[in-house]
């Protein structure tokens, strides 16, 4: 029984000692100017003490060293029992400011927490296998620096300070705002929690490895709506005096400016405490579906592809708002009906990460072709060198 216990004890002490000389990953401790001065003072006084064998100097040295120990203990106590949680408020759109919230809670019983700061970073993220480390011996320094600075430039960094004391048992929230430059999957990371507490001798930074991967929707784009072309009603449909308030009620949507008061569903509005409008089956007669093709042969210019994605996102939102978006599809995937807001958000999430594909968007072998409406399908094609146009039933309906 004693041998395993002795072994465990040895392991514990070995770990503890290694923990002292080999800090945990992403944990940094740097002396500040005060710290450097203190260390210099300690060395000077220590040298003088040994030189003169003066116990007065040994006392001063012992006090300085114990102050350093106290600093470490207080710093540990300060961070102990503090929880943090990262929250991102969707949606995130390219070019628009996004807010990241950090919720803090101090679980200590009577010790408050002071003087923390939090380092955030946000940058594009691709889900892939981790890269194998490669030697940079053969690489030129300038290339390495250029790569590093490119990676750094793609990152948005920010530091937020906890300006007030975090009382025992209390909680606080901190916000960090950043602007994602382009669509895609963004990794928001709480890179570290730093503190100069208590005496400012050491700058301590603890890595947290808390991340959130969030899609960034394409930026809205301005476009021209061409009134000459519009979704066509199916032939043989009934002629109606007023469009939109006949047929079966197929759903409810939020009120939009210009909607008739007659269309308000009062009971549902009262229940939800906001105005809801009845949607009739007849309203779908001028709805359309969006079909996005990402054929790299079609979209040879990346910037034009980006414009196309932005236009598709903008049109999808406008059409949904107007209750005219029937379904969405990308390449050969299945048509997804756009009945609820979640459907639109799902489409925008897919748009956030869509990329040009090398092959035409044909369905994989063995899988049935998606049921695609033959009419009222909005497709996109390049227009000139920069522009993009949207076509419905072969007619141009919108262009950038």
């Amino acid at each position, binding site marked *: 029984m004693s041998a395993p216990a002795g072994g465990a004890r040895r392991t514990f002490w070995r770990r503890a000692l290694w923990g002292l000389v080999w800090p945990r990953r992403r944990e940094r401790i740097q002396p500040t100017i005060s710290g450097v001065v203190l260390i210099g003072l300690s060395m000077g006084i220590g040298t003088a003490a040994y030189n003169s064998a003066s116990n*007065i100097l040994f006392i001063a*040295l*012992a*006090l300085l060293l114990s102050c350093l120990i106290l600093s470490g203990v207080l710093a540990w106590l300060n961070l102990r029992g503090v929880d943090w949680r990262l929250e991102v408020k969707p949606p995130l759109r390219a070019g628009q400011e996004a807010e990241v919230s950090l919720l803090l809670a101090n679980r200590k019983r009577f010790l408050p927490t002071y003087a923390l700061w939090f380092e955030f970073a946000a940058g594009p993220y691709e889900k892939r296998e981790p890269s194998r480390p490669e030697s940079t011996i053969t690489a030129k320094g300038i290339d390495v620096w250029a790569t590093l600075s490119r990676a750094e430039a793609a990152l948005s960094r920010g530091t937020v300070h906890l300006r007030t004391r975090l009382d025992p048992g209390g909680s606080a929230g901190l916000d960090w705002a950043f602007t994602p430059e382009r669509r895609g999957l963004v990794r928001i990371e709480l890179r570290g929690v730093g503190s100069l507490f208590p*005496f400012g001798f050491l700058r301590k930074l603890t890595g947290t490895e808390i991340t959130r991967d969030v899609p960034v929707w394409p930026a809205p784009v301005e476009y021209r709506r061409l009134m000459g072309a519009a979704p066509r009603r199916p032939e043989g449909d009934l002629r109606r005096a007023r469009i939109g308030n006949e047929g079966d009620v197929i759903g409810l949507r939020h009120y939009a400016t210009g909607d008739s008061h007659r269309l308000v569903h009062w009971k549902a509005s009262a229940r939800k405490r906001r105005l809801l409008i009845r949607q009739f089956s007849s309203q779908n007669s001028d709805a359309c579906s969006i079909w996005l093709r990402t054929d790299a042969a079609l979209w040879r210019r990346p910037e034009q592809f980006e414009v196309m994605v932005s236009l598709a996102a903008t049109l999808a939102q406008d059409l949904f708002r107007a209750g005219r978006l029937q379904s969405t599809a990308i390449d050969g995937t299945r048509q997804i009906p756009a009945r609820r807001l979640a459907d639109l958000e799902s489409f925008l999430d897919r748009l956030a990460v869509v990329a040009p594909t090398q092959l035409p968007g044909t369905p994989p072998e063995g899988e049935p072709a998606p049921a695609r409406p033959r009419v009222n399908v909005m497709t996109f094609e390049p227009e000139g060198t920069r522009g993009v146009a949207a076509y419905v039933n072969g007619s141009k309906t919108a262009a950038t």
Partner: protein
Amino acid sequence: MEARPQRLSLDELHQLRWLIGGALMILSVATVFYLDIDSGIMAAVALAGIAAGLARPRLPARVPAWVHRLAFPAIVLFFAGDLRVTGQLLPAIVRLDLMLLLYRGISYRARRDDLQVVVLGLFLIVVAGVLTVSLLFAAQILVFTACALCLLLVVTIAESTEGGQAPKLAVRGVVPPWAAHADWGRLWARLREVADWRLLASAAGLFGGVVLVSGLLFLAIPRFQLENSLFLERFVTKRAMTGFNDSIKFGDITEITQDDSIAFNVDLSDPSQAPRSPYWRMIVLDQYGNGGFKLSPVLRSELGRERTSANILGVGATGARGLATWTFYVESGVSRYLPLLGNFWALRFREAQNFRYSPDMAIVSLRDEPASMTAFRVEGMSPDSTELHDRQFAAMWRKRGPAGLHVQLGLQLSEADRAALGRIVAGLAVPAGAGAQEFADRAMAWLRRSHRYSLSPRIPDGPGDPLVRWMASGESGHCELFAGALVLMARSAGYPAHVVTGFKGGTWNAYSGNYTIRNSDAHAWTEVWDSGRDAWLREDPLAVSAASELALEKGDAALAGLMDRSWSARLNSLRVFWYRRIVNFDQQSQVDTLRAVRDVTGNSGRWLREATAAAAGRIKAWFRGPWDLARLVRVAGTVLAAVAAGWGISNLRWRIASVGRGGRTDPVRREAGRWLARVDGPQALVADLQRLRYGPAPTWPRPADVFRNARRAASGSRRSRRRAAWQSRP
């Protein structure tokens, strides 16, 4: 009314920073006053400036801009000039430090300036500590450390409150907002308002931990000494304050006795050897002339060449195991001659010293006046010897005879004075061939008969030597006159003699168990050569005879008469503790301490094991004992009492915690308690009230709603009671 925030605002933090910084500077500057480096005026000016800036934080804004522009060059120029004129590095640096602190005290400080204040202050404190080795240093460094840590903590919190921006230097000539409405009384009230006793207790505990860890580090830091040691004392020249120099004029020693401060403390390893009336010899003065004694060149040459060492091997009783070890702690400014009882076997300093030593005269002279306390240990020193063997003088005496000894027998007196002296000696009626002791006894008896002891002696005016005039008069005199007179009488009778100055007696500190010798114990006496014994006999005309002295009790009996239990003895015991345990702590002490710790740890472990085994045996025996009803009742009663005590302690703890929340219960809890006493339903309301009363604050329901419901419930039950009472009326 809006509640005031329970934390300090940024302005209040800056005010606190200014206040602590000022206190730190005042504490540091005050140390200069007892440094004896002629910087008192500058320190006073610095103190006044810092205090003014502290009292009126708006003041630094009124300092003209040109002062700030010229401050640094002016300070550097002053330092260079100071160094050039005085040629003393350390005092010049201290004055430079004072000027920098003054400047920081009258200008608004950024973070780096606060750091500079800490460093400058620490320099002054440490220099003062090294130079004075005073117990006050311990108190000062502790207070300084506490203040410095508070200052740095406040700076860090202020920086965090400003969003990571270090406190910036204020625009010159503009009063910063925190200084514009600084009110120390209000700040103190706010500090009391936001203070949490648990935090303060934690801070005090942590600081106690710092002191404890410092003590442990002090004990554990490995000690070894480098060569060519650096002494700060080298950069300061100091003069002896007591007057124990190579020459004295009559009255010098008496002047010293007016000073009641401590001259030195002596530890004795074996108090049973403590003499009742020790004579602490410091210097021998053998050349008389012009109304004073001085060290003759002959005797000076006996001191030999200067040596540098930490150990002196003497000619005392070699390997005298039975003799006690004496440890001396001589205060600065006493003398460069070390106090000794006589010859010794070995004298050890804490560190290498430059000294000269005369083994025959048992005199040790340091090269410089010690600027700080000097500690040394003496082994093999006889505590009650009344004679000092001098082989060199004996050889000279045998070789040359009285005719060849011009110094020890020299009388630089006029013929008239010689005649007068001769008449006095003839009046002693010393038989021819009498020994030195007999002559000395007769001479001392005559002196005691003819003169009384007084600290205000009177030497009659007139021609000739003043000492002879005093002897011929019947005036009272002090120890120097008595000792000098005996020397002249002995020399006139053909006995070599000289004056010895030093201290006599002292008190025994009942608390720290050591001799304490004050400057008021300064004394002068005579040593007369006894050719029969080849030794100098100690003769003190103001003391009882040597024979009686030998008969005096020793050890505990002797100490009982010297025992000092006064308050000053209590304070001095602290000083001795400081010297023994801190200042005099060396490598050997470290080894001894570690060995003692190891022994204590080993013993305590063994003791713990034995105690545990014994306790286990007792418990086992108790369980095996016969169990009857009375015993069962006793056990049950004990268990109940323990439970009740536990409940009481937890209740007390809750009450203490409630006291901690500002000396009273939380108002919400108090209000909930009141409603609980008045409301007896419904169940949900009672549960809510109980949660408000006893539950943790984060789980509380909204207090206002609960109290409103409680009010309704209480009024409802009141109405129903009233209705029931009305209905029950006949």
